[in-house]
């Protein structure tokens, strides 16, 4: 039994005390660990997803992945044994593009080259807003300066970020995520970024809408399972979605002492979560 999981006498974890209808799953750190050669499957996760779908659950994959298109992600996960379709995936780039088009903005895109495909055809001349994503090696001083100047030159600076994560795991290394770079620009220009991926409420509410769960209907419940204590667990909980943290991916034991976010439960991995759902829900 996993330490830290509060259980009632019959072994039912508290996060399954009330029936769950919708299931939101994080991808990186839950289905697979990213890294060098396309990454590696987290043991048991392929079967766990199959079992959930076979049991008829509405599942959506909620990711802040912005370094490939949704189809690119489907292909990548396919190579690892997962059978997903693009329509089951919610990711920030398509959401950002929609917002930029609606507001007729011209973005300075500080994102990974593979994520740029989602923005094909957008007018990026004389940018008047900044969209920042997981640019990794493109987070150079000069690129950050470029973003900084667009914001500084704008009367009403708009800074969008695909996420606000602090770091993620790649291979055996932890690497800086978008959050720190977003924070740097916020600090430099006295602006507040608009987060379009997790942990933004708009993202989670969009995910619920996608599986026809009304956030107003408190009797219909959903759970979010992720490895990020703030982005996944905290973000979901703020939308009345239960947040469960897996002890895979970027999970660190210190997370269990997080000052503000207390998950509704912990599980060792996705397979363990799915076993509990299938047994008790």
């Amino acid at each position: 039994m996993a330490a830290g999981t509060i259980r009632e006498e019959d072994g039912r974890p508290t996060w399954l005390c009330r029936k769950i209808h919708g299931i939101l799953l994080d991808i990186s750190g839950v289905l697979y660990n990213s890294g060098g050669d396309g990454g590696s499957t987290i043991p048991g996760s392929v079967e766990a997803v199959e079992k959930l779908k076979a049991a008829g659950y509405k599942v959506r994959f909620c990711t802040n992945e912005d370094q490939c298109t949704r189809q690119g992600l489907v292909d990548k996960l396919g190579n690892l044994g997962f059978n997903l379709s693009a329509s089951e995936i919610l990711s920030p780039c398509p959401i950002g593009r929609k917002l930029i088009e609606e507001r007729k903005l011209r973005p300075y895109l500080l994102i990974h080259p593979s994520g740029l495909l989602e923005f094909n055809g957008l007018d990026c001349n004389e940018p008047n807003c900044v969209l920042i994503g997981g640019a990794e090696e493109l987070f150079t001083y000069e690129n950050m300066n470029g973003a900084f100047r667009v914001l500084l030159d704008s009367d009403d600076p708009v800074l969008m970020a695909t996420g606000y994560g602090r770091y993620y795991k790649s291979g055996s290394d932890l690497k800086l995520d978008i959050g720190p770079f977003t924070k740097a620009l916020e600090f430099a220009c006295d602006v507040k970024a608009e987060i379009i991926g997790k942990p933004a409420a708009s993202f989670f509410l969009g995910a619920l809408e996608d599986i026809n769960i009304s956030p107003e209907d408190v009797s219909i419940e959903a759970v979010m399972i992720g490895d990020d204590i703030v982005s996944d667990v905290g973000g979901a909980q703020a939308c009345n979605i239960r947040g469960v943290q897996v002890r895979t991916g970027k999970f660190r034991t210190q997370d269990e002492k997080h000052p503000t976010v207390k998950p509704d439960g912990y599980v060792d991995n996705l397979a363990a979560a799915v076993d509990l759902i299938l047994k008790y829900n």
Partner: protein
Amino acid sequence: MAAKIRGVLIDLSGTIHIENTVIPGSIQALKRLRQTGVAIRFVTNTTKESKDTLLKRLTNIGFDIKAEEVFTSLTAARRLVDHRQLRPLLLLGSDAQQDFKGVDVSSPNAVVVGLAPDCFDYEMLNKAFRLLLDGCPLIAIHKVRYYKRGDGLALGPGPFVTALEFASDVKAEVVGKPQPSFFAHALSEMGCDMQSTIMIGDDARDDIGGAEAIGIKGFLVQTGKYRDGDENRLEKPPFAVCRDFAAAVEQICTML
């Protein structure tokens, strides 16, 4: 009767010089102040320029200032590193690195951040971040947001320090003015206490506010970055507001 004045802290840029120009009367005034026998230290926030480079500049324009009298935010960081026997990863410009000559930087157990555009890339920031996550301390020379360079405004160290703080949940120890520890260190070197010390500077917030906060008498000079009414924006008014450094010295001489 107030405590007798025994020590004077003096800011450099904007107070006695601006780049390679002496603020008129400052060389003479400094001589005069020395003749009184009070202890003198120079306290300055630098991030790009090593103490050597700074001293050369001051000497070249005619000041008689010795290395051991100058206390910079970089040397404060250096002292901190020496004192705690840290092996820092240095995110510093090449000239600033001179102030860390001889420091053991193998298998680092601390991170020091100054103004270092060449170091603010993904790889270096990741390296710093991993050290912080392992519990290493983060030392910031200061947290300025941006600065002016040839082609316009550019990001200062502040945003990158903030990025590392956010990523690692480690709060940076900022050295230099207006940190109380910075002033306190200069005082202990002079062998003076707060009540018997004066700080002369052009920065109302960092020089005067910082000094007054720990009981040092602040003399705000109306040169350098001083802008009309700066003294009124402070929580506690400065002990004195003077036209320039020479005027400040004149007033101090009457207090000895």
